[in-house]
């Protein structure tokens, strides 16, 4: 990795940084790029934003999604009864 990464390389580093600590040289290359590139800085922010939106714990709109259909519920109930009865 060069001292300053390209946008493409930085997008990979920024993604990896969401999953664990980067090696020093990579971290430095990413930081230097982010300091001078508005586009990648925004990309990096949006990665954090996506995480916030997706995490179940913070998903404020969870109850909006449809639940089990009556048919599926009935099927599962039947299977549970079978299991309990056995």
């Amino acid at each position, binding site marked *: 990795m060069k001292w300053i990464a390209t946008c493409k*390389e930085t997008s990979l580093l920024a993604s990896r940084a969401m999953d664990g600590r980067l090696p020093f040289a990579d971290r430095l290359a990413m930081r230097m790029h982010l300091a001078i590139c508005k586009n990648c800085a925004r990309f990096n922010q949006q990665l954090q934003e996506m995480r916030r939106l*997706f995490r179940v714990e913070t998903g404020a709109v969870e109850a909006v999604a449809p639940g089990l259909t009556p048919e599926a519920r009935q099927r599962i109930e039947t299977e549970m009864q079978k299991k309990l009865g056995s």
Partner: protein
Amino acid sequence: MDTLDTHAWLADHGDYLFRMARRQLHSDELAEDAVQETLLAAISAQARYAGHASPRTWLTGILKHKIIDLIRRNVREVELPRDADGEEAVDSLFKQDGHWVDPPRPWGNPHAEAELSQLRRVLDDCADRLKPVMAQVFSLREVAGMETEEICKELGITPTNCWVLLHRARLFMRQCLELNGFSKAGAA
């Protein structure tokens, strides 16, 4: 056993478990399977439930394993992260010199109830549009919050493949969200 009312599980937690599974498996059918397998496993394991956690937390723990099982069963026939398709798709987002073709645009900040439910729909649609293995790795990481090492180990893929998959998934998710109303400009 007082603390374990098996009949209440489905009524009280069925929808919750289903939504969680649905968001990670991207299929109604698989999500229903996951809920059923979870509840059946819970019946078998109820002796081991010591009442340390709430029933929902306990069931959610079982569900996570069931989801991974289902993904593992499906992951075999899925494309490898190395495949030219995905690589070309990533290449098309960047110019030859490594700059963005379409730089990320600023996103709005939805607050109203209606905007949030619209946002949820876009999130789910975009996740559903990812290639299966990508969607699943993305969901295990970003929805379930599993550690990357854990995901690699569970799915039997190398960390490098995992990073490549997650990078692609995030690029495509981001682009999809932006094209579907997340950007202020795009909403106009």
